[in-house]
């Protein structure tokens, strides 16, 4: 009996003993992630050169790389290069993102702060939210023409909802104790909003902004698909029609990079202004 107990204790302690995690476990982003990239690139290369996929279906990685370098070698004001078009797309996405998310945050707070307003508008918000916003893109050419405004509009509409929904969720999840604390100190309505409610909502707001930052690029590109004279989305359509797949891939890579950077920028802002909270809510769109 005691022997058994001792034996099992030994097994137990063996299991509990701390082992130093290996290099792979500690820094997967520096070891495993690059390895995945190498494997993907190798797969790509093999597809083109060994399995013989035609270049008009899958361009070779080195061709894509060359197209990317060529496009980036041009000056920013040269409409034949990528910088020019990327600049326009980023500008559209950024403007739309700022307008859409600001409107979403303000309206989200307003609808939560005045429950009558919130309850009466809610069915329309839900209805509009379930509409695929991309479907509005053709309309915006009619309204705004081929210029900047239309792309900013569609981006703003797309980024509006995740921020609105998260702002409302944030407002409703403010701990009642925090509000009672403020009220017990005779806090004004303004102080209650600025010192308790807004900061409490920050984690939710950032979850919404994070989703919106990725959707912003989508909005700008879709806007350019429908009709534009410049921008990366317009380039995509152009290369597609000319069957130039290598530069098409290069532009897709650029878009991925831009989306990643915008999302990363939001992440940095969150770490700066919301360091005290883990991301509170999973992003909802």
């Amino acid at each position: 009996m005691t022997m058994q107990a001792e034996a099992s204790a030994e097994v137990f302690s063996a299991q509990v003993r701390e082992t130093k995690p290996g290099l792979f476990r500690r820094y997967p982003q520096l070891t495993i992630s690059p390895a995945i990239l190498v494997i993907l690139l190798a797969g790509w290369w093999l597809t083109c050169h060994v399995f013989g996929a035609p270049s008009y279906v899958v361009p070779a990685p080195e061709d894509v790389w060359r197209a990317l370098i060529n496009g980036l070698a041009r000056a920013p004001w040269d409409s034949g290069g990528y910088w020019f078009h990327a600049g326009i797309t980023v500008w559209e996405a950024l403007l739309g993102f700022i307008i859409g998310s600001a409107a979403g945050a303000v309206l989200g707070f307003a609808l939560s702060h005045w429950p009558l307003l919130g309850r009466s508008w809610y069915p329309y918000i839900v209805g509009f939210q379930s509409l695929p916003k991309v479907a509005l893109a053709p309309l915006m050419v009619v309204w705004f023409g081929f210029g900047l405004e239309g792309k900013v509009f569609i981006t703003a509409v797309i980024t509006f909802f995740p921020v609105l929904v998260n702002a409302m969720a944030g407002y409703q999840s403010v701990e009642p104790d925090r509000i009672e604390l403020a009220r017990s100190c005779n806090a004004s309505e303004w102080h209650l909003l600025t010192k308790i409610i807004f900061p409490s909502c920050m984690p939710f707001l950032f979850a919404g902004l994070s989703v919106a930052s990725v959707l912003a690029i989508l909005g700008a590109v879709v806007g350019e698909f429908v009709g534009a004279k410049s921008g990366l989305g317009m380039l995509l359509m152009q290369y597609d029609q000319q069957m130039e797949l290598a530069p098409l891939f290069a532009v897709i890579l650029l878009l991925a990079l831009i989306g990643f950077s915008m999302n990363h920028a939001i992440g940095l802002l969150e770490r700066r202004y919301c360091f005290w909270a883990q991301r509170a809510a999973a992003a909802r769109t």
Partner: protein
Amino acid sequence: MKQVLAAAPQASIASASPLIVARGLCKTYAAGDSSTVALKELDFTIYDGEFVSVVGQSGCGKSTLLKILAGLLPFTAGTVQLNGVPLRGPSKEAAVVFQSPVLLPWRTVLENVLLPIEFRRLPRSQYRESALDLLAMTGLRDFADRYPYELSGGMQQRAAIVRALVQDPKLLLMDEPFGALDAMTREQMNLELMRIWSRSRKTVFFITHSIAEAIFLSDRVIAMTTRPGRIADIIDIDLPRPRDLSVINTDRFGRYAARLRTLLDAHGGLS
């Protein structure tokens, strides 16, 4: 361990002026057609500098009573006077300590402590020194610039007490402030609170469901019944101060505990 407490001259109740006077205090919650009587005709007086606890089972309305005194909840009938003035909404003479510390995670401890000062639009710079002094008194001076998540549960609740004290209120309303702490920390916090109380001479209205905690801390204990919440009896705790934890093992302490237990069992009944 800080077993020996600072000398706390017991306020002579006869000479002290009444701070809270409640007469015929009633609270009814209306929900649709039905209504629930939470508090029924409470009469009590609490004097300046007193430490008064309210014990009762959950659902006896003791938290409702505290919220009424804090001005956070309207009452249905009766009168309540705070410092000679009829109670209408939150008073600047009263500060609340909640069951959870309710520290704002984006503010440092010092900024949290100064929050009521900002709410009341008082000059922050004037209260900074006294806030730091209070933090020093509760052993939190070195944590003034830390964030709440860097503090233990007991330290957080001490910061919450300092936040209440910084407004220099006459009355401290405490709603089971140590209920969420483990037994050992709770004893420490009780000693700490005694020490703070004996130095600051605030009037404390303390809600708890622990009979021992109520007796250990209080000058008087209000025993409440359940549904509707009524005062079963108010018991004077005549134990010498300063008190240390050994007082819990004395016969007199045991007799008080037995009496309160009987009161609470007779009215409402522990199942």
